[in-house]
């Protein structure tokens, strides 16, 4: 399975954020996206996740399940926000996402208990999500990645608000996923503690004007 991005360029509002980005990721390869604030990392990830239509170029998956229309359908996306409800308990949140997302072909997610165990917070799955501390919330959002199987992980600053221990723990999770032949794309400001990863450094296009309301 290989993820191919060809000549991607994307707009935010009326400004072109980045232009003509291409890469190929094979199974068990990881891509780390770096760059200064506002350089377009999150934008790129949202394009890969199919949440933002690229101006030009396209993303496609080779050797994946045949019936999918867009790679995003076999991808996990962990954005700046955790996609968990404050009012529901952690367990309720996780089991909802597990049942709602289901598993992509070629794998199965682990149980809630194991997932919570894997992120090192076995004893507080019964608390409402809103009661958790920032880092605990982030960890639980990672548990979401485990409860349902997706070959591709798209992670936007996954280690924000995590302590040192959790950083290592997260690195382990990613390594395990890669060994199982998964693909990981992560935007980050801090080193993720992964070895042998490809890196994409966004310079930040300084918004060259790409909108059609200008005269030449």
């Amino acid at each position, binding site marked *: 399975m290989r993820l191919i991005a060809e000549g991607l*360029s994307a*707009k935010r*509002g*009326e*400004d*072109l954020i980045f*232009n*003509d980005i291409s890469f190929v990721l094979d199974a068990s390869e990881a891509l780390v996206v770096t760059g200064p604030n506002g350089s377009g990392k999150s934008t790129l990830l949202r394009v890969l996740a199919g949440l933002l239509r690229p101006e*030009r170029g396209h993303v496609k998956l080779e050797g994946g399940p045949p019936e999918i229309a867009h790679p995003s359908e076999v991808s996990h996306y962990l954005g700046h926000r955790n996609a968990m409800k404050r009012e529901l308990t952690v367990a309720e949140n996780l089991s909802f996402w597990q049942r709602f997302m289901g598993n992509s072909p070629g794998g199965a997610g682990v149980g809630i208990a194991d997932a919570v165990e894997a992120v090192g917070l076995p004893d507080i799955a019964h608390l409402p999500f809103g009661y958790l501390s920032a880092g605990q919330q982030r960890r639980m959002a990672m548990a979401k990645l485990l409860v349902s199987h997706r070959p591709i992980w798209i992670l936007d600053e996954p280690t924000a608000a995590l302590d040192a221990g959790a950083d290592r723990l997260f690195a382990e999770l990613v390594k395990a996923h890669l060994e199982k032949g998964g693909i990981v794309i992560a935007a980050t400001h801090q080193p993720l503690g992964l070895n042998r990863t490809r890196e994409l450094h966004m310079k930040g296009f*300084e*918004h*060259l*004007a*790409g*909108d*059609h*309301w*200008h*005269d*030449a």
Partner: protein
Amino acid sequence: MSENSLAIRKFSDLANPTRFLALADRLLPWLSGLTALFFAVGLWLSFTTEGDYQQGETVRIMYVHVPAAWLSMMCYSVMALAALGTLVWRHPLADVSSRAAAPIGACFTFLALVTGSLWGKPMWGTWWVWDARLTSVFVLFLMYLGLMALNRALDDPARSSKVSAILVLVGFVNIPIIKFSVEWWNTLHQPASVMRLDGPTIDPEFLRPLIVMAIAFTLLFFTLHVAAMRNEILRRRVTALRRLAARSAGREARAK
């Protein structure tokens, strides 16, 4: 490579609005001239033809009321078409067109409402009744205003265009309701007597000025619409330029 591909694309993109602007500049004088002409003839006709034997002079209201009413519906149809253009062909001008049309449509609808109720006083003895026709037109008016409000709320056109287009299409259900309300519910308002499958059933004495006025109103609509579209395009260019200026200014500030 990336640079010139970008350049090419930029050219092809801005081709539409720019060409449109040129076209508009050439078109507008003619349109406005024709409009003025037809209005002159139409008004002259509508005031020279003698009044109806039972309605008296008030029948002349019809020459304003009916075209305005028709235009109010046609304008929404134009917007619906533009919405299709936005969603299906992603044409940059389609959004501009539907945005520009909304206020004009609101004005025509308002005119139809006012003239209608002016006419209603002598005919039905009241300014306003909540019958299906009248209310559905009033709802159309509200929908125009609602769309204008929405367009103002979602200021960033890049994002709002598709969304409001969808709403325009959904709102289109109201047009047939207006058109056939007179058939579906028994109303005070008279049924269509001009736009019927089996030819008009209205005295040519009234028909002639009505037709002329209808053409005049249609021309007026297109004149206003083209002008409004031109202003909308210019407005967007100005905002785009202003944003660029701000950005580049900031960059220089950072450079030194």
